[in-house]
């Protein structure tokens, strides 16, 4: 039998119809929806008189523009409120399950999918959000789509897709203490570039990946899009099954046994071929920080702000120059001398319970530096409850960090959590684009531990010294 990659196995198992010279019609097992990219899709259905084909294979939540302050207070931003009201009305009209703002299981769409056991190995999972590859950590084919495709899935439970190429990113070595999944993926993006995986579905393999927890794997897969990848995925193993077992929507009883047996067959066959392979060794990796305005512009914490003149080609020189100008940084400055005004711990990249535990260990018994404002935003209501049960909220509050309600928050600044022009932020999110966290705001992407350390010292800091 033909040796297949995991991607090919999942793809082939979901082809409803394929014809020479046309995109495949691919069945979608789980469709996740949020308030920002769905309204126009539901409108499209109404305009064409179409129904939602399988309402219970779509799950909706509110996350992108929800306030993270007191939920009992009325929402001040009327346009945000309208977007949430429209989602609620659409879900009601079309019979789609919704975790709304006041539901105990509300949270960031890519946090709640795995957390509730909605995202399972072998599935095709889509969402109108580019960070959908997060769910690939379960051993699923998960990718972001636009609003027209959201409408397509709603109407047909299928998508027309051209098959991407396959890339293997093999990560060898064991991560040194204080170095995390976030540093791993930042270093990978730095190595292959923000378009290094464009057109590819990536499978992460190797010792360093196997040794990651499920949550660490999610952090890695989450940022696949920042290297341009269509999807990022990791083969399911005992770590995956242990994580999933007993989750609210995971299969139960004999279904569970049947499912696990199927999932065990998903891994890439030993002699299957990838279109491209990238190898990386992380045994000497340091904590990584972005210095520029895209996630590929990275440096180790012991490094310096680079000189644009040292870049090999004209395009990169220009990009680096523009980035440093926007970031207000001078070439040659040691990275650990860069002062920060704000710290954000949260997002679909690093808003899970392990992230909050790691950050709390750093700040415990210490105080946030004067002039630094730091917020912790749990990725979901579940994460928040778990953190509070462990007393993490008290550690953060005692150290001077703010403890918020679940949402996307300052990762994209659609709610009131934004940077002011010129403010500099150490952020556990996924994008450091110009204006991403607020017009004129300057973002440095880091791990939760590094963000916590920066909050305490007031500048980018090597967390290994804590």
């Amino acid at each position, binding site marked *: 039998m033909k040796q297949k990659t995991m991607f090919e196995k999942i793809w082939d198992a979901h082809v409803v119809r394929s014809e020479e010279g046309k995109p495949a019609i691919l069945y979608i097992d789980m469709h996740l929806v949020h308030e920002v990219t769905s309204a126009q899709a539901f409108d499209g259905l109404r305009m064409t008189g179409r129904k939602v084909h399988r309402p*219970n294979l779509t799950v909706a939540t509110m996350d992108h523009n929800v306030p993270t302050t007191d939920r009992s207070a009325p929402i001040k931003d009327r346009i945000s409120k309208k977007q949430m009201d429209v989602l609620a009305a659409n879900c009601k009209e079309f019979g789609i399950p919704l975790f709304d703002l006041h539901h105990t299981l509300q949270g960031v769409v890519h946090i709640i999918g795995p957390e509730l056991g909605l995202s399972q190995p072998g599935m095709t999972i889509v969402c109108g959000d580019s960070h959908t590859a997060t769910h690939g950590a379960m051993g699923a084919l998960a990718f972001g789509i*636009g609003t027209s495709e959201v409408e397509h899935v709603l109407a047909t439970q299928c998508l*027309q897709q051209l098959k991407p190429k396959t890339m293997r990113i093999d990560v060898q070595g064991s991560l040194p203490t204080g170095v995390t999944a976030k540093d791993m993926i930042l270093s990978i993006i730095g190595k292959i570039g923000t*378009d290094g995986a464009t057109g590819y579905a990536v499978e992460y393999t190797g010792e360093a990946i196997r040794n990651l927890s499920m949550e660490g794997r999610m952090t890695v897969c989450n940022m696949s*899009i920042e290297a341009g990848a269509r999807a990022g995925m990791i083969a399911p193993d005992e770590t995956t099954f242990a994580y999933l077992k007993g989750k609210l929507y995971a299969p139960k009883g004999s279904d569970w046994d049947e499912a696990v047996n199927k999932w065990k067959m998903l891994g890439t066959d030993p002699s299957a071929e990838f279109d491209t392979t990238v190898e990386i060794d992380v045994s000497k990796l340091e904590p990584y920080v972005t210095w520029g305005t895209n996630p590929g512009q990275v440096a180790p914490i012991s490094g310096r702000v680079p000189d644009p003149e040292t870049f090999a080609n004209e395009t990169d020189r220009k*990009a680096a120059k523009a980035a440093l100008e926007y970031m207000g940084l001078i070439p040659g400055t040691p990275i650990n001398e860069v002062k920060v005004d704000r710290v954000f711990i949260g997002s679909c990249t690093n808003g899970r319970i392990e992230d909050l535990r790691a950050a709390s260990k750093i700040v415990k018994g210490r105080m946030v530096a004067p002039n630094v404002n730091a917020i912790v935003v749990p990725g979901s209501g579940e994460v928040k409850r778990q953190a509070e049960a462990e007393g993490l909220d008290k550690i953060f509050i005692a150290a001077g960090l703010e403890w918020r309600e679940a949402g996307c928050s300052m990762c994209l600044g659609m709610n009131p959590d934004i940077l002011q022009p010129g403010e500099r932020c150490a952020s556990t999110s996924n994008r450091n684009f110009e204006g991403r966290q607020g017009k004129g705001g300057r973002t440095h992407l880091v791990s939760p531990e590094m963000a916590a350390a920066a909050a305490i010292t007031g500048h980018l800091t090597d967390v290994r010294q804590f």
Partner: protein
Amino acid sequence: MEPFVKITGIVAPLDRANVDTDQIIPKQFLKRVERTGFGEFLFYDWRYQSDGKTPNPDFVLNFPQYTSASILVAAKNFGSGSSREHAPWALMDYGFRVILAPSFADIFYNNCFKNGLLPIKLPEETIRTIMDNAANQRGYELTIDLENKRIMDKNGFVIEFDMDPFRRYCLLNGLDDIGLTLQYSDDIAAYESKRPSWMCGISI
């Protein structure tokens, strides 16, 4: 969707790599629940000064010679970042029908076709030539002929470009791809009958 066959228009050069969708349409404008009206916010942070109203005279789209441009030429990895379809909606609403670049981010590229916006990948050197012509020749126009996969100007510059045949066919005919998939509802039903019971959805 309106069919795309052939257009002739002024070319505006945006000489930047990795133009991300947060730049194309910043998040504060994603709160609209319609598909229209995004053009006035296109490239908002670059287009306007800090008051958000006064045009920034240094931004290329504010140069008088490009105000009626319908073709945008940019450097590599155009449309990276978020999946927001508001990006092609904003480009279309502003008046662009074609984007030329050496490479595009996948989701953005795909979103363009759903809206009748034509993204064309061309070699770096060709992009550089077009960028220079657009910067140096006032009123520089290109004709984009999708039927014949050809780009030409009035001075004898002619190149051919590649495009997935099915995507081209859909654009030329302005086809509704949901309608195409729905033609296969029997295949979908047959597929669904074989899915395991534990994958049959949730209710709250």
